[in-house]
């Protein structure tokens, strides 16, 4: 009896060891390329080519300085920050307003309006890029911040309305009823009573939208042509074209481009994971 239990324990131990080994191997495959990217950003070309695995001979910031001064990197970075911030803010604003109307009031067509928003979740907007381009061209919004932001807002609204409606519906009626009895205006009820309670859902919606917008390459590629309006992922393609042979600078550019979102991810990994997998995980 005790021997079988002992051998089972040993078997379990062996199995767990194998699992840990597999996870460790996977972690190396995930992390090592990023590690090489970061250490290469401190190296000169000669160092990268001759000793790719070694640590840099010095942590010199020459490459970073060149990226900062010789390229439009800072401009791309600022554009990405601005476009992402404004787009996410508008998605939150418009979707919360619409979701609030759908979730908290009974009116004719309310089911139809919700259906309309939900059907937008299934539309791959990329495939409608030709008419979208013509539409923005007619409005004079091609090659402008506004055009790009509006496309992102349109893309973000459907799922944001879906999440916010679901969440706002769960808030108890009594809260708003008693405020209404006290004579509070509908706007005040929304602004001061209901929305503060919706903060957790707003965070999820913000992350779910901010990450793909921050990382997007397709829409700027089609819609933006002026170098001064380009976003970070789009700017990277320009930058790589200019420094094809200067690998130290290339690795520095990639490292700097990956840095902001990586730092935020490390701090908010839980929210990132639930925000991005939201929709696939019920």
């Amino acid at each position, binding site marked *: 009896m005790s021997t079988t239990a002992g051998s089972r324990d040993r078997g379990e131990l062996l*199995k*767990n060891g194998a*699992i*840990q080994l*597999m*996870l460790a191997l*996977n*972690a190396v495959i*995930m*992390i090592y*390329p*990023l590690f090489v990217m970061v250490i290469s950003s401190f190296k000169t070309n000669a160092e*990268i080519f001759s000793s*790719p695995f070694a640590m840099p001979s010095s942590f010199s910031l020459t490459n970073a300085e060149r990226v900062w001064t010789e390229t439009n990197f800072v401009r791309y970075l600022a554009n990405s920050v601005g476009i992402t911030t404004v787009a996410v803010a508008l998605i939150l604003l*418009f979707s919360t*307003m*619409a979701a609030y*109307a759908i979730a908290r*009031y009974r*009116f004719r067509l309310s089911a139809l*309006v919700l259906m309309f*928003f939900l059907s*937008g979740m299934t539309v*791959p907007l*990329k*495939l*409608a*890029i*030709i008419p*979208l381009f*013509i539409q923005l*061209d007619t409005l004079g919004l091609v090659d402008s911040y506004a055009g790009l932001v*509006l*496309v992102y807002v*349109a893309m973000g*609204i459907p799922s944001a309305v879906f999440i916010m409606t679901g969440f706002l519906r769960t808030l108890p009626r009594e809260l708003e*009823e008693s405020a*209404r*009895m006290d004579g509070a205006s*509908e706007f005040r009820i929304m602004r001061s009573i209901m929305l503060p309670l919706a903060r957790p859902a707003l965070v999820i919606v913000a992350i779910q939208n901010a990450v793909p917008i921050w*990382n997007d*390459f*397709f829409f700027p590629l*089609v819609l933006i042509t002026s170098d001064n309006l380009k976003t970070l*992922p*789009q700017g*990277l*393609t320009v930058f790589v074209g200019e420094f094809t042979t200067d*690998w130290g600078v*290339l690795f520095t550019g*990639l490292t700097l*481009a*990956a840095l902001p*979102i*990586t730092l935020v991810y490390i701090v908010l990994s839980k929210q*990132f*994971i639930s925000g*991005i997998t939201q929709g*696939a*995980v019920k």
Partner: protein
Amino acid sequence: MNIGRRHTAKAFPWRRSLWIASLLTPALVVMVLFVLWPLLSAFRLAFYEFNGLQPTGFVGFENFRKVLFETPYSDWTYNALKHNIIAFVALMVFENGTAFLLAYALLKALPGHRIHQVIVFLPVVLSAVIVGFLWKLFLHPLFGLVNQTLALVGIGAIPWLGNESTALGSILFANIWHWLGFPTLVLLAGMQRVSKEVIEAARLDGAGDYVLMTRIIWPLIAPSVTIVTILTFIGSFNWFEIPYVMAGLTGSPGGATDVLGLYFYRTAFGSTTTGIQDFGQGSALAVMMFIIVAGVTAIALRYLRRREIEL
């Protein structure tokens, strides 16, 4: 209970309607202008001939006939389509297969499992442009990390992205590295919903890991598998960024990595070399891609849902 609300509604019905309407208007306007209208136009424009940005005349199914049956367009279409299908199959086997094993390993909740979740998901938050360029550098025939590593064990320099037989596989590898964390954590979430009692009961009946995985967990996570399969399909047929960054607009070398997304972009917005731009044919391609994705998704959803119910 409802007095307050009825009171305001009755006293100022127009005020209430106006308030509701003003809440809905911004979102509706944006959706109509930038989703509904472009989408409806996309179907219409596929039947028109274009001169630059302007549709010049109705041509029926001419655009579809060209991209499907007229060389060289049809050759490009089928060549690209073939690569999308290869990508889907490869991602299902290698990406989702690995993800399933990793999810099962994480399910055990051994020490460090939380860190491993954060690590496997890290590349997912990076832009495909960063990932694509990073692996393009690593796959460089002479100075890339991959060949430098292989040289240590005496394997000669392989031109991963320059060789027709290895280019698509190399790009798929970069894609898997980028996205692996997503199916892993979706499947893990599915596995975590399988009740502890069911697993305990199976264990008491003497089920080992293999039996537990194939007979209990696999059937019970069917909903997650459905979602992952469909998202993989949609992703494979909208695939654009990583091929664009790693293999360029023409799917080099010699179209060995061309996919529908690249071909569509070249047709609609002009390749860098020819500069030809055709919104009519581009729209036809977009409509076909839309039909493939929507059609297959609908059928798959039905079929896979039925499987879920049977189990």
